[in-house]
């Protein structure tokens, strides 16, 4: 038994180490300030990844603007308003759990069907006389699709931190003649601040790395300009890695770019997760 567990541990560590070493070695010479801040050139065989970095950042910002308030309100409902045994609360809990198990490609398809065809198509028909503006992939639909995918992360994280606010403090506020809403606003939410922050960071870290949901909903192969409207398409780091390694004119020649892009994405998500863990452990200690 000891042998088997030992082997498993070694195997897992080996996989991580090999993966990191290969990526770092392959990418370290290519990464530079210039690589991060310039556009690709020569048919994407040279140059930097600025538009992919910019697109990913913009996408996660729009995603957070949608997912965080919506997720926080859902978490508030579940913790403060719904009775745990009620039909409604159970349904919402079930929906959140299910949402977190849905494969990401399904979110992509849903985004295509719902946001682009249905919402976008409807907007074009009603407001723009059938002109094709919103019924096509763009950064707004991609971000909203990604928001749906990351919603469970936000909800669970905020829920956990709201539940960690001691009953005593709510009682103290209510006993002073505060209404339930005043208590939530002035005691519960400030107490849950770090949980909300952790949830946001974890959602961003998840959203930054996902490719499938934005595949049909907004990510572009190559764009000569940055997106400057919500109806523009965008480039993203994850998708950039995918196309560089499968559809590039010369896969071998672009290998360093692929490694470097992967390294950037890894560093980004690692850093975000690390920050989230830090905040969470600080939160745990303070209660």
């Amino acid at each position, binding site marked *: 038994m000891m042998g088997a567990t030992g082997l498993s541990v070694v195997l897992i560590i080996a996989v991580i180490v090999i993966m990191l070493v290969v990526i770092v070695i392959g990418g370290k010479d290519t990464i530079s300030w210039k690589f991060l801040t310039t556009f690709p050139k020569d048919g994407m065989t040279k140059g930097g990844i600025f538009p992919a970095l910019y697109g990913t950042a913009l996408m996660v910002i729009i995603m957070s603007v949608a997912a965080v308030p919506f997720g926080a309100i859902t978490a508030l409902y579940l913790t403060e308003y719904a009775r745990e045994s009620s039909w409604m609360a159970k349904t919402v809990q079930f929906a959140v759990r299910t949402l977190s198990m849905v494969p990401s490609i399904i979110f992509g398809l849903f985004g295509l069907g719902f946001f682009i065809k249905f919402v976008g198509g409807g907007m074009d028909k009603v407001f723009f006389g059938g002109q094709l503006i919103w019924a096509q992939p763009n950064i707004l639909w991609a971000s909203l699709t990604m928001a749906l995918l990351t919603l469970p992360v936000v909800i669970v994280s905020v829920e956990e931190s709201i539940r960690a606010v001691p009953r005593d403090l709510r009682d103290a506020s209510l*006993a002073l*003649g505060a209404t339930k809403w*005043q208590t939530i606003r002035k005691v519960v939410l400030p107490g849950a601040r770090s949980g909300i922050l952790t949830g946001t960071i974890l959602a961003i870290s998840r959203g930054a790395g996902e490719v499938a949901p934005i595949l049909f909903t907004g990510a572009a192969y190559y764009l000569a300009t940055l997106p400057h409207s919500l109806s523009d398409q965008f480039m993203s780091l994850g998708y950039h890695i995918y196309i560089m390694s499968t559809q590039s004119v010369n896969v071998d020649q672009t290998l360093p770019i692929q490694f470097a892009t992967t390294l950037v994405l890894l560093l980004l998500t690692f850093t975000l997760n690390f920050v989230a863990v830090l905040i969470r452990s600080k939160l745990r200690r303070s209660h």
Partner: protein
Amino acid sequence: MKETKIKTRNLSLYYGSKMALNSISMDIPEKQVTALIGPSGCGKSTFLRTLNRMNDLIPSVRITGEVLVDGFNIYDKNVDAVNLRKKVGMVFQKSNPFAKSIFENVAYGPKINGIHDKKKLKEIVEGSLQRAAIWEEVKDRLHDSALGLSGGQQQRLCIARTLAVDPEIILMDEPASALDPISTSKIEELIFKLKVNYTIIIVTHNMQQAARVSDNTGFFYLGELIEFGKTKKIFTVPEKKQTEDYITGRFG
């Protein structure tokens, strides 16, 4: 004899189908200290919490009978529990200051009541801290976190916070049970001073404390009010055998 401030009539409380209070009728006089004693689980804290409707927050609780404060039934449909709690303040067993500054803790209640004038708030905070006998200790660090205070100071801060809302009645649920003897005696002195202006009802496990601070004592046992009367009488010549057994330490 002082006037009656709180009158309960056949007050019963159920957790689901389990009866926790059995038909309590009690007249609590104004501007005196009334102590509620009894063994753990006897219903004294539950009874205390019916007086500011804190039990409303527990979904399975059902209440029958009446609680009259100044002659009005607080369980009447028209009574807003939120307004009631401004009149009937509460201090809890475990001191529970907010993770805010000392000043903000005391200003919390007034702010919720819509007082935002800085000068007025300052007056209320200072006055409340003085009445809670903690002003001298904190006046130079009003903007430090309340969590940096000692346990006894935190509890007096919680009393100041309650006073800031200007209640008429203060409910205290074992306010000194987690404190050292010195902090406890400070709280007791404070209770003694406060009863000039407030009607105080205190739940306590400590019978010496009840004897020291209260004018009236009610003895609860298994959800019933066994005996209620002047503290002096209860502790010297109780009418009921159960009361005598409890205060002489034969059970509980």
